[in-house]
């Protein structure tokens, strides 16, 4: 008895429970554990401690290369990040935190764009974040066409020498065809006015979301392309394990993590830290 634990069915049941509880999908969990059993055999892992370490390693690898988590910066002119996602997941708050950090820490000239022209007090909410960040802010009347707001914002950004345009959009369920079409239109306007695709299209995801995150990602990727995930509310008890599935099956990396409601509550995504918390 080494005190490091036996490798047996009970150990693998413990792993399975941890992964499922973290919202890792059944398919991904089965695949990870099958690969792990194979690794135990091929690598002659000696005890539970070694298997646990191997699991940690394979999960971290599944989340992608270190470079994947960096936010892209345009070679010249303003960079544009488009924030998209379903209702209430944390788009506006995440964008506000990003504006705050880019302005205060990175010394950039930032413009926040109120692309949500639908929901009650959406622009007012973003306006408060622009005040906190001390950055530029563009809004139009409620019910105006969001694509028109984005068009005007890009012209203004070029005129005002803005480094970073952060575009907020209305929450929309991915199964609503008319709303996804509206998003496509916003994407087309960005592309036309920038002369290239947005530098980042961030899909905001609530860490408490279960398997539906896969459906969300599929539809948003199809509509406007997704370059990264902003995983919000990771300060709760949900572990957000579905992002492992999203990386493995759809190739989308997590780029930012939200850990609270204050301006400073934002972190770059670090796979090791994420997997550590997941397996705890």
């Amino acid at each position, binding site marked *: 008895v080494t005190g490091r634990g036996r490798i047996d069915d009970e150990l693998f049941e413990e792993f399975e429970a941890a992964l499922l509880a973290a919202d890792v999908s059944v398919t991904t969990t089965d695949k990870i554990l099958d690969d792990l059993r194979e690794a135990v055999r091929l690598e002659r892992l000696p005890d539970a401690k070694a298997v646990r370490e191997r699991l940690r390693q394979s999960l971290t690898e599944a989340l992608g290369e270190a470079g994947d988590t960096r936010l892209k910066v345009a070679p010249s002119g303003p960079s544009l990040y488009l924030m998209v996602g379903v209702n209430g997941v944390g788009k506006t708050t995440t964008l506000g935190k990003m504006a705050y950090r880019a302005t205060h820490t990175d010394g950039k000239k930032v413009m926040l764009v109120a692309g949500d022209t639908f929901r009650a007090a959406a622009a007012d909410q973003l306006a408060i974040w622009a005040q906190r960040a001390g950055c530029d802010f563009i809004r139009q009347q409620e019910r105006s066409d969001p694509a028109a707001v984005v068009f005007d914002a890009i012209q203004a950004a070029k005129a005002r020498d803005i480094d970073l345009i952060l575009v907020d959009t209305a929450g929309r369920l991915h199964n*609503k065809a008319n709303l996804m079409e509206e998003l496509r239109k916003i994407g087309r306007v960005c592309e036309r006015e920038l002369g290239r695709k947005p530098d980042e299209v961030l899909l905001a995801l609530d860490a408490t979301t279960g398997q539906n995150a896969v459906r969300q990602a599929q539809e948003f990727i199809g509509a406007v392309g997704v370059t990264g995930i902003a995983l919000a509310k990771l300060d709760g008890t949900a572990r957000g394990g579905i992002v492992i599935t999203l990386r493995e099956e759809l190739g989308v990396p997590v780029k930012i993590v939200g850990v609270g409601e204050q301006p400073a509550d934002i972190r770059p995504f670090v796979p090791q830290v994420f997997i550590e918390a997941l397996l705890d």
Partner: protein
Amino acid sequence: SLAEKLQAAFDKLRGNVKLTEADIDVALKEVRTALLEADVNFRVVKDFVGRVKERALGESVLEGLNPGQQVIKFVYDEMLALLSGDAENPGQASALNFAPKPPTVIMLCGLQGAGKTTLAGKLAKLLTKQGKTPVLVACDIQRPAAVKQLQIVGEQVKTPVFAVPGGDPVRIARDAVEWAEANKADVVILDTAGRLHIDGDLMTQLQGIKSATHPHEILLVLDAMTGQDAVTVAKEFDSAIDVTGFVLTKVDGDTRGGAAISVRSVVGKPIKFVGVGEKMDALEPFYPDRMASRILG
């Protein structure tokens, strides 16, 4: 769908009169996967599958059904019983509790972004239609523009909004009830700030709002796309403030909604309504049979 998967699994067993334990185990593995993919909590799935197995063991295959259909029927029946709480009249479960003497106080609570403020407006509209005179209360004074959001919602549903700039949520709630009594508003709808169940200070604040207003309804508002965490959230809120029911929101999405089973079975309180859109009329009573069919895909 699960029904199709079970059909396929059982196709080779046609003509059997009794379900053997081996047959049942094959079927239950499919059921387990389907429920996990529908976001039912994995411990709840374990108990659920165990109960279905007990029912299925030793039962003869019903006339006209093959074993796959038989198992589906057991699963559906078990799920329906769970979601309706074996209520004599399932429709009864979604009725709101009103105070014997007005005003009735309804407190909405839940995680950030679940849909509380939107629900507050929907409830006000529904109650107005039922001949009541509700008032909306802005107890969220921390989220940027939260009060303004509720005020706009109030305008949309022609309901007064009680708000105190820079106030304290517990005092606002208490003062709102006094205002309602003085102004003959017979329902007080308290919209509270989204909070984490692990935030000690904010959970204490919620308990403070409860003690100050003695709500007749305490509704935990839960996003239908919530995954495994639903059980933890529901248990923590329930143990802190003893909820009277749940409202599942964003059911107009395509999430299977397994969180409904998880919270109903672990906390044992009824799901009263479902939110089915962003507009103020997008509120429906909870129908257990519709939810069961949806979860089973």
